[in-house]
């Protein structure tokens, strides 16, 4: 993984020092909350319902064991002993004291981490494929591109006050696991017609109030132009994006208003001016960053799945886990293991400091010291030798990470909702927990298969409800919590938006409603048909009828 040089290190240290002075000015009453707010927001520090919340960047989701241990240390020392992994592959701490935040930033800087640009109207943490570098279907490792973008966007002086936040995602695989079509800019490393590598560029995707699928504005961008072209897009957006209405300020609104072709033409005109500027990536810089992501030294292994047959037969629970939580690796004899943070007890995505320490140890012991945070709020051990899976599974089980539910109905994506978030309309965590308690058995009985259930506590869509196969959105009806149900969304290559089925349900009716939707699926599905495919085939009416009766 990328290791900071002295320059990278100096930036995060200077940032921590700067924030320490800003906090001192705030606590001394030299600056008002209104003036402090944009400063703290540039450092990922929000004010939530009961406390401050600090969001720490996990660039493209990748952590070393040492970094994971430091995250545990921070949770233990300056928070209440746990953290929340987010749908943007970051981690959030829910209870820091303002005066402690500079110390937390120092602790992060010690392990080459930071909270820079994790909020505010700037380029945010770049996200990527959680299987980057190990996926069997990878064309190129996306992480060097992410890291180059991270450095370029860090304190970019021109883009310090964009119309709105700006999210970039990069994937290098044939299957899109980074939801690139749902980002302000989505980049896909592809094979160019000449056989080389190029970058397909999508712009204007996003969720929130106005969900839009991103549009391709360039099919084959030469990789040397990663930054020149991105800078051209950002400049067009910074100059022309709307600033009169925060709900219309994302780039998707600009792209939509101009039309994708006109937008692309504007970007091209700007690009023509800066194409040959100093930002053109020369081979040396690409090679320098790529060298940090060289594959580790794998042990040459014979891939022998039959080695797992005995434990698989003896232990159906292990077999279920193998089938659901273990994925193909491009190196023979290795597997990618997903640790489920959805065991139904803790809120989805939460981990205690002891669990984080334990994951760090497992990463050292089983996965060459690496852990990845996924946008489904789980963790990944990317490099596990397949003959050690059974022993790993036993350890994961005692830690509560072996729930065999990855990408199943109980692997709920869930934002913090009204338990923490000051913008929320409704709680999402208790709904996710109830779903997990009530539907685990139903899933086992009916084998519901691949099913994404996503919950957001408000229209901001941090829980990605639009792209859930089943999406739940918390709304506020005269001060009370209600929930809309939508189906048919997807954030994969078949990107689509969910459709609301009808009137919202109160808190005590929402899980029943989900169960009704699932029963309807079970009644109508063909053999081996995913929920999403059944819903697309039979349409919404059978679901509406089951939920609301005949009109």
């Amino acid at each position: 993984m990328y290791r900071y040089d002295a320059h990278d290190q100096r930036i995060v240290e200077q940032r921590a020092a700067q924030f320490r002075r800003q906090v001192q000015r705030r606590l001394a009453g030299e600056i008002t909350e209104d003036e402090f707010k944009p400063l703290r927001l540039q450092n990922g520090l929000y004010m939530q319902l009961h406390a401050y919340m600090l969001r720490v960047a996990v660039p493209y989701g990748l952590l070393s064991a040492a970094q994971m241990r430091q995250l545990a240390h921070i949770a233990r020392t300056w928070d209440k002993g746990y953290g929340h992994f987010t749908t943007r592959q970051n981690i959030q701490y829910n209870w820091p004291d303002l005066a402690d935040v500079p110390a937390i930033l120092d602790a992060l800087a010690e392990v080459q981490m930071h909270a820079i640009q994790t909020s505010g109207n700037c380029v945010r943490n770049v996200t990527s494929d959680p299987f980057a570098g190990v996926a069997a279907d990878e064309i190129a490792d996306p992480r060097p591109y992410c890291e180059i973008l991270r450095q370029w966007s860090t304190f970019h002086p021109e883009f310090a006050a964009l119309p709105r936040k700006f999210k970039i995602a990069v994937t290098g695989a044939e299957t899109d696991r980074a939801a690139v079509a749902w980002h302000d800019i989505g980049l896909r490393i592809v094979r160019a017609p000449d056989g080389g590598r190029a970058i397909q560029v999508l712009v204007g995707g996003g969720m929130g109030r106005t969900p839009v699928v991103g549009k391709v504005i360039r099919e084959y961008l030469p990789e040397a132009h990663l930054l020149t072209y991105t800078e051209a897009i950002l400049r067009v957006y910074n100059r022309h994006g709307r600033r009169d209405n925060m709900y219309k300020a994302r780039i998707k609104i600009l792209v939509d208003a101009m039309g994708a072709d006109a937008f692309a033409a504007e970007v091209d005109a700007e690009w023509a001016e800066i194409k040959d500027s100093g930002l053109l990536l020369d081979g040396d810089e690409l090679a320098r960053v790529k060298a940090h992501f060289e594959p580790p030294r794998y042990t040459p292994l014979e891939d022998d799945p039959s080695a797992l047959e005995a434990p698989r037969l003896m232990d159906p629970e292990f077999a279920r886990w193998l089938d659901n939580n273990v994925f193909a690796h491009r190196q023979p004899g290795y597997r990618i293991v997903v640790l489920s943070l959805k065991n139904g007890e803790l809120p989805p995505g939460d981990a205690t400091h002891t669990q984080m320490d334990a994951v760090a140890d497992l990463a050292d012991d089983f996965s060459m010291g690496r852990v990845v945070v996924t946008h489904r709020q789980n963790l990944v051990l990317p490099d596990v030798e397949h003959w050690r899976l059974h022993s790993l599974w036993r350890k994961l089980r005692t830690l509560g990470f072996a729930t065999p539910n990855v990408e199943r109905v109980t692997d709920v994506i869930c934002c913090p909702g009204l338990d923490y978030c000051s913008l929320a309309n409704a709680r999402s965590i208790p709904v996710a927990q109830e779903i997990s308690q009530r539907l685990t058995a139903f899933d086992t009985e009916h084998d519901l298969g691949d099913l994404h259930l996503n919950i957001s506590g408000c229209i901001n869509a941090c829980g990605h409800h639009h792209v859930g196969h089943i999406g739940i959105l918390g709304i506020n009806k005269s001060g009370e919590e209600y929930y809309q149900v939508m189906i048919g969304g997807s954030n994969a290559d078949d990107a689509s938006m969910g459709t609301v089925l009808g009137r919202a349900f109160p808190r005590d009716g929402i899980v029943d409603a989900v169960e009704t939707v699932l029963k309807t699926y079970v009644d109508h599905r063909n053999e081996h048909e995913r929920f999403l495919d059944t819903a697309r085939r039979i349409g919404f009416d059978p679901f509406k009828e089951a939920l609301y009766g005949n009109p």
Partner: protein
Amino acid sequence: MATHESAAHAPLRRLVVAPRAGQPRVVDDALCHIADDEPLPLLGPVTVSWDRWQSEESTLRARANVGVRLPNDVEPADVAARIAGVDRLTIDFPSFKDGRGYSLARLLRERHGYEGELRAVGDVLRDQLQAMRRCGFDSFELKAGKDPEDALEAFAEFDVLYQPAADEALPLWRRVRRT
């Protein structure tokens, strides 16, 4: 936005300046921003709005020391076409959240070769000064009530620059050996 005092009783302003080469410092400044319905004083440095410049350019060119106040949404090429010989421009920041002025500044400096004074006015706060300077601003009228001496510290907060901008044509990786 521009103040409306007439030159005769304009108090000296404490102005932060950060020349491209040299230390940032605070200086006394007598520049007057003249409103569109006000006559120009006979002497002294003044600015006029971009609208007024466009409609009265030839008269204004007859007077020395006239600068132009730009809103942040003008086309830099339109400006460049009409400001030959002008050596003072201001760009307005209606709110610190409105970052269009950064792009405009870079384009005037880097694409259109503007070399005169470029001043940030409006909602200018200390924590933006370094980004503004990097985009090509070299003087800063802080928002009323903010201490310019204090603000000088802001320029020293970061000294590693990843990206090229108006102050630096090359990205870090072309300037230093990175290991």
